[in-house]
């Protein structure tokens, strides 16, 4: 009888223990190939699990395209994870009531513009972990060899930029690494940053939303300017097939390019060890502003986008645990840890004065390019929808910078897309 009691007691204890550890929440996330970001999130998970012994987070890592396709199917079928990676242009999630309302998060710790990017009908839906700007990275040594000096303002004018392209081509070197083999947006950076400066934020917004014609003389002038850069051989001959990851290596390793126009998340790949695709040790990396545009309304304007974020599934059975975990990111400590480790901006308020670590200098350089900047929030494909977005991707992201079509064709195609 005593043995039976002992067995029953042991069984009860085991049951109680399992009950404590039974809250399991699932996460699907991009960044399978971006170790720095993945390490950051895995570290956050470990910290959260240590602080909340009853909760276990099961993470699955994907590449973005595969993740998006899987999520669309899983959300339709009701088999999506409790929380997942998303970006604020995916407002179809919010439109269809698929996301958990995150109003109860500690929004005081999050930048107001980042909250705005994730707001839909007055409610916030995403934790804006990653924010990024479009940056012109350059190889200091190469620019020195080309005789190009970056001014103290960190901004070349458009003529000097054209000269840079010609000098690099003259030495049989690619002036700017960029490729659109697997992404719908990098090729468009060249044009949209120029248009933003020329038009200023309000008219640029009107242009992207179809309220300003692409035949506007300022738009046509800017496209002509970009065309001179393209015609000078600014981009790689493999531009149309070069993938984003390959473009990184193209810039810093093989064959090498003078500059690289990319999101400030460059670091998440480039600061990996060289044998894992990172830039060479002691690579002379510099960052400058996008070239100034003649007759610009706002040469200090630049794009900032909220990128990788986490959202809750509206159908989760563990909303409290999901909210608690997402809330764990909303602290200055977590923001600083993100900056120190990932070296990309974040939508969470950070105390920049406390940033330390081996790449602190890099972060100061990055901050310098944003000094005095006026921001437009979102890259074009985060603002556009449907046909204009598709046409923009094919025309402005791909065919125009590839040199396949001219300015008139861009204007015609974009105007037609909004009809």
């Amino acid at each position, binding site marked *: 009888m005593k043995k039976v009691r002992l067995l029953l007691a042991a069984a009860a204890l085991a049951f109680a223990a399992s009950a404590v550890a039974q809250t399991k929440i699932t996460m699907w996330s991009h960044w399978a190939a971006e170790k720095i970001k993945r390490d950051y999130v895995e570290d956050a998970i470990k910290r959260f699990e240590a602080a909340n012994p009853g909760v276990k987070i099961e993470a699955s890592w994907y590449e973005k395209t595969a993740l998006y396709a899987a999520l669309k199917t899983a959300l339709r079928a009701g088999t999506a994870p409790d929380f997942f990676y998303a970006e604020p242009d995916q407002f179809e999630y919010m439109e269809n009531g698929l996301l958990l309302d995150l109003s109860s998060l500690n929004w005081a710790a999050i930048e107001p513009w980042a909250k705005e990017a994730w707001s839909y009908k007055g409610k916030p839906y995403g934790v804006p972990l990653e924010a990024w700007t479009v940056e012109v990275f350059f190889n200091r040594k190469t620019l020195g060899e080309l005789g190009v000096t970056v001014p103290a303002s960190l901004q070349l004018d458009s003529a000097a930029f054209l000269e840079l392209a010609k000098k690099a081509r003259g030495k049989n070197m690619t002036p700017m690494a960029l490729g659109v083999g697997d992404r719908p947006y990098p090729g468009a950076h060249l044009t949209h940053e120029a248009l933003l400066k020329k038009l200023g934020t309000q008219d640029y917004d009107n242009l992207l939303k179809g309220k300003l014609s692409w035949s506007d003389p300022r738009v046509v002038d800017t496209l002509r300017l970009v065309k001179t850069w393209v015609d000078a051989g600014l981009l790689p001959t493999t531009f149309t097939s070069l993938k984003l990851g390959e473009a990184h290596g193209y810039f810093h390793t093989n064959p090498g390019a003078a500059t690289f126009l990319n999101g400030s998340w460059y670091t998440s790949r480039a600061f990996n060890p060289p044998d894992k695709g990172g830039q060479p040790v002691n690579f002379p990396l510099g960052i400058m502003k996008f070239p100034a545009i003649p007759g610009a309304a706002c040469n200090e304007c630049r794009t900032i986008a909220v990128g990788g974020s986490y959202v809750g599934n509206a159908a989760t059975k563990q909303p409290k645990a999901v909210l608690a975990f997402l809330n764990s990111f909303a602290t200055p400590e977590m923001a600083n840890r993100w900056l120190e480790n990932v070296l990309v901006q974040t939508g969470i308020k950070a105390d920049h004065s406390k940033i330390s670590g081996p790449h602190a200098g890099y972060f100061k350089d990055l901050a310098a390019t944003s000094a005095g900047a006026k921001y437009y929030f979102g890259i074009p494909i985060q603002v556009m929808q449907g046909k204009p977005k598709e046409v923009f991707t*094919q025309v402005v992201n*791909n065919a125009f910078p590839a040199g396949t079509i001219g300015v008139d064709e861009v204007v015609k195609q974009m105007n037609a897309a909004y009809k």
Partner: protein
Amino acid sequence: MTGAPGGVSVRAGIERQPWGAIGAFLLPAFTVYVALTAYPVLRTFYNSFHRVLPRKGDELVGLANYAELARDELFWRAVRNTILWACASPLAEVTIALLLAVALYSRIPGMRFFRIAWFTPVLMSYIVVGIIWVWIYNYDWGAANALLRALGLEGFARAWLGDPKVALPALIFITTWMWAGFNMVVLLAALHSLPGEVIEAAELDNCGWAGKLWFVIIPLIKPTILNLLVLSFIGKMKIFDLVWITTKGGPLWSTETVSTYLYKRAFEWTTFDLGYPSTIATVWFAIVLTAVLGLTWLFRQRERLEY
């Protein structure tokens, strides 16, 4: 009642059919067919008349999706590309395959090696083939441009998958390279089954190599050729993987196929609506079915005329 041999009536025979066992054996296959083929087809047809969104009831929109599709120039561009591919590719594949099969049939030196070498591409998935050809077509260091440069034809070197004028022919070349070997093996089997006396009779009549091929061999293996043409046509009307790996339909929709466009509308446009993509699928299914029935009818008519 009609009597049956042995005095067993037909009705009695029917009554003794083991319907329970027949049902038990048919049920698994029938269930799989209904669940994975019939239901999805019917559901797609149903969806095409609705707006289908998660967590909301299906909203009947009548023919609105079909009207939108009729005005969708990207869809029609994809249709043009796909039909061009589906018409050009089978002719190229079967013609090359026939020449290769005849070469092997006439026992060229190294035939075992060539049979394996020519057949190998079809053993690879479109994913692998796509990656290999993206490399081959690379502007800077790809084999295609390297060969042209080596031959002094630098002027013809180009970004094969980045130029809208040549991207689709470049992809058609890949599928031709990939499938010619498969067609060759089937045609070779057909050649080996030909009656030897007919070939010998043609040789006795001093019929030359080309004459034998055109007047004797091709007519005899025509049913096989026609089947291969139809199979290849159907395959190209559905092509997706290769385009997705290499160009994603670009540049400027020059390689967009109906399948890639459908996928984009279902999974990449900022919408959850499955109604419009279902309309694309329904219309395309009807077009493919009509084309296949038309081809089959045409081939039968020609056979009737000849015999």
